[in-house]
């Protein structure tokens, strides 16, 4: 039997003016288990807390109920006070007789009656409380960043600068990501490579950062503070230590027909290659699928020409197992496939291109060495059409329902750059809305229209038809003038929607991080915890969480780093003790609970049980209290009642219900 103390706060007149606090004390004393009750002016004051402490000590209280303001206000205060007096902090319950009672009721009798019932419910609950102790777990002071684009690089740099080790795992042969493919960036028109390359170099040179390129995360186990990750280092076929990056192998490689991923397939590369000149590491990989040596066994030119003897055809994939305290996902995006948008003739005409392809065409290192030309015949275009929202803001199932966010701005950038460099080219942009929230964004767009004479038409393009003469007939509607437009263009650029990198689904499953219907990783809270996954210890950086531009990505990368640093700075983690627990004897092992757990906190083990003398091995649920956040979804999903939530147990809630309905 508990020995319960009840403390009724006047809160000055906030409570006492409407609730007869003496009556509450008197009635509380009649409840089972209550051995002490008193009221006081301000329970949260030093003096009030001292009264609580004194009563705990003198009356040997095992639980207390404070009738006061909302627990959201002072629950922590009273828990700490109880703890100082030697009582387990989870033996404290609050009856909210201010926000839920005195402040909303005017009639004293009625308010007092309600306060008595609320106190009674809290007493009934605390009668069933048990002392709880937060668990502890160690923190491995190293972070893993998945993805080596600008988001991953920035996150890694920030974490490393704080003094923690960081590993970056990048799937492709080089870090740099999408940003390395861009020519210029809005709204300042900086050269993308010029601002990205120093960051790449800095990351590579940082003593706290280890970069695994051409590598993938294979397996993740463990939980916040203590993840174990298997990383597959794919065989590069080139010895990283010996290679000097001279590039001779690439020049001499006889297999040159592979579409270049970096240039979006607009030109080709050799089978041994580095994706781009500034690649980090500047060590090529052999694409075994297209390598003559690997396919036929006859060739070996690269090994012959390599002065350093770095070519190693026998290299095998290697699995590295590392421990991490925090994991940041920065897997980025790709543009969507345009299979559902035949009307734009993307697959029929070489002169219909995506914006990302235009970036490569405009880039001096790109397939046309930076000359704006039609890919079909190499002629300079005179008339260019940009189509916005291709696959974005789509109300049917063909594309994405969301706004890709970056297209308005990069199209303004493209239009401006073309008009600047080739003033004789006419540029027309078909848009639904022009969205330019962001610092200097609208000014940028207006410059495109006002200074550079870009022709913006609000309207949708219905069809792009290649003509016999090689030009493209664009049929559109002008929504403002309410007329149909037919115009001929030399090139059409599609502002193609972006979507999360398709690999993210696999990674999310490994991390038990939740993902939304568009494959974006879900944040723990849309507003208040935007860079954390609901799964503890997993953080989100960049477009994997939602569409964003470079400045936003960098901001979020920094924010994710701060959250990771906050975690790594701790020596150990105290876990919320109000977690779910499964009764091994009642558990059916049916997996229902695991299906509703948003944190992947429930696993199944075959355990030896002794069920009243019957010894057998059973499949039972095990809750990892470091991962469990205490929502209670599993407790209701569990049909046998094996799963219960500490601090909000079935019996506790039922006791409250009974006390209220009595």
């Amino acid at each position, binding site marked *: 039997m508990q020995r319960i103390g009840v403390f009724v706060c006047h809160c000055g007149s906030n409570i006492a003016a409407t609730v007869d606090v003496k009556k509450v004390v008197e009635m509380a004393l009649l409840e089972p288990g209550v051995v002490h009750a008193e009221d006081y002016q301000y329970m949260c004051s030093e003096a009030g807390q001292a009264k609580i402490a004194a009563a705990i000590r003198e009356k040997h209280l095992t639980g207390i109920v404070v009738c006061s303001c909302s627990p959201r206000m002072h629950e922590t205060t009273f828990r700490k006070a109880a703890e100082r007096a030697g009582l387990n902090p989870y033996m404290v319950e609050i009856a909210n007789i201010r926000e839920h009672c005195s402040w909303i009721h005017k009639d004293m009798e009625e308010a007092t009656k309600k306060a008595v019932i609320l106190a009674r419910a809290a007493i009934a609950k605390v009668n069933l409380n048990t002392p709880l102790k937060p668990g502890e777990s160690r923190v491995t002071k190293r972070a893993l960043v998945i993805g080596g684009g600008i988001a991953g690089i920035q996150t890694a740099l920030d974490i490393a600068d704080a003094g923690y080790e960081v590993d970056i795992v990048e799937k492709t042969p080089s870090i740099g990501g999408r940003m390395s493919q861009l020519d210029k960036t809005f709204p300042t028109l900086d050269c993308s490579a010029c601002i990205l390359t120093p960051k790449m170099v800095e990351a590579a040179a940082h003593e706290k950062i280890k970069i695994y390129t051409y590598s993938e995360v294979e397996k993740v186990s463990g939980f916040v503070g203590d993840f174990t990750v298997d990383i597959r280092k794919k065989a590069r076929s080139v010895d990283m230590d010996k290679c000097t990056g001279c590039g001779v192998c690439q020049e001499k490689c006889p297999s040159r027909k592979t579409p270049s991923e970096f240039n979006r397939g607009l030109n080709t590369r050799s089978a041994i290659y580095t994706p781009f000149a500034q690649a980090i590491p500047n060590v090529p990989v052999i694409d075994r699928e297209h390598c003559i040596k690997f396919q036929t066994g006859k060739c070996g030119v690269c090994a012959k020409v390599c002065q350093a003897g770095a070519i190693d055809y026998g290299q095998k994939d290697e699995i590295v197992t590392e421990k991490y305290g925090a994991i940041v996902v920065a897997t980025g995006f790709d543009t969507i496939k345009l299979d559902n948008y035949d009307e734009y003739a993307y697959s029929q005409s070489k002169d219909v291109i995506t914006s990302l392809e235009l970036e490569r065409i405009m880039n001096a290192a790109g397939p046309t060495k930076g000359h704006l030309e039609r890919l079909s015949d190499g002629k300079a275009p005179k008339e260019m059409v940009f189509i916005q929202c291709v696959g974005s803001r789509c109300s049917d199932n063909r594309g994405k329902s969301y706004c890709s966010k970056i297209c308005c701005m990069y199209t303004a950038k493209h239009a401006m750059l073309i008009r600047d460099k080739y003033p004789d080219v006419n540029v027309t942009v078909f848009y639904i809305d022009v969205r330019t929230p962001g610092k200097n964004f609208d000014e940028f767009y207006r410059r495109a229209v006002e200074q550079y004479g870009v022709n913006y038409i609000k309207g949708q393009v219905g069809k792009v038809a290649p003509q016999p003469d090689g030009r493209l007939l664009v049929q559109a509607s002008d929504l403002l003038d309410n007329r149909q437009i037919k115009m001929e263009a030399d090139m059409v650029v599609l502002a193609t929607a972006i979507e999360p990198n398709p690999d993210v689904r696999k990674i999310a499953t490994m991390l038990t991080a939740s993902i939304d*219907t568009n494959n974006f990783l879900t944040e723990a809270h849309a507003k208040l915890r935007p860079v954390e996954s609901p799964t503890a210890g997993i953080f989100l950086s960049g477009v994997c969480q939602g569409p964003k531009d470079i400045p936003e990505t960098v901001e979020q990368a920094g924010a994710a780093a701060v959250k990771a640093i906050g975690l790594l700075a701790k020596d150990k983690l105290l876990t919320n003790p109000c977690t779910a627990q499964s*009764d091994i*004897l*009642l*558990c*059916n*092992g*049916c*997996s*229902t609970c695991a*299906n*509703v757990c948003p944190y992947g906190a429930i696993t*199944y083990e075959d355990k030896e049980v002794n*069920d009243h003398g019957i010894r*057998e091995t059973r*499949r039972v649920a095990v809750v990892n209290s470091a991962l469990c956040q205490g929502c209670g979804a599993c407790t209701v*999903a569990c*049909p*046998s*009642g094996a799963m*219960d939530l500490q601090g909000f147990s*079935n*019996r506790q809630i*039922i006791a409250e219900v009974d006390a209220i309905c009595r």
Partner: protein
Amino acid sequence: MQKLIDRIRELLADGTVARVLGWRTGDLPYNPEPAYFECEEELQDFVYNGFCGANLSKYMIEASRLEGKTLVCLKPCDTYSFNQLLKEHRVDREKAYIIGVGCKGKLDIEKIKKQGIKGIESISGAEIEEAAESLTIQTIYGEKTCAYKDAMLERCHVCKGKEHQIYDELIGDSSDTTDADRFAQVRRIEAMSPQEKFAFFQNELSKCIRCNACRNVCPACSCRKCVFDSTKFDSSQKANADSFEEKMFHIIRAFHVAGRCTDCGECSRVCPQGIPLHLFNRKFIKDINELYGEYQAGEDITADTPLTHFTFGDAEPSIVGERG
């Protein structure tokens, strides 16, 4: 049936299976019981006829713990239950050798007796071989006949189909015996006024004697310890001391199996008081189908179960009132 027995004998003899879970012939013409057979001579009592309504899936929970494989005879509708148990890790597929047995509708002795047929000595027409149109019943009060359809279990009138969902081999033909709308009665009740609904269920549930037959026969109610037997929830009640308790028991039971109930109809088959317990389950199934998309538990074991899954655009609970 001979083909079935021959095959079982073979599998038992060559050691493929350690035992057989089927039906043993009863001492009355209509009461075969679920039974294990472990050797050739025991098989002489093996029977499979129209009265073998019992769903043997649930016995496989226990059988999964035994050494060696258990051959189990499952009718098409029983295989849904087996699948569901498999999904919930309650049975071990490796421990089961499933013979999908043919089914042309199972018989309900209560329905025969309700027609005033009593003192039954023998029944012919319940054998499985050919689909009989009628039953001939010898009684101490003379010979009676009864149309096969009129003696069929309620669940067979809303048959889920003749396809077995899981099996190692099939023996015997099945037919789809559907001749009624599965949700007709649910719809009829839905159309009643609250007073009528309440009166209907009060009348039915007042018969409940809390024998727990419905729960214990139910393949979805496979908890090691039911919440109503456990002290953990403060819900341990044995008797219908107040009319509330039956409601609590049957609503919660239906809720616990919602999305998992395959509508095998065993609950209604075994209720000694003839309470149409399947109505609770069907109501949930109908709601799930209408609100969250067609779902048949036990059909696809990889599918998301309705109550452990959601969509962002799910109906709000207020739809209950809005539907009228």
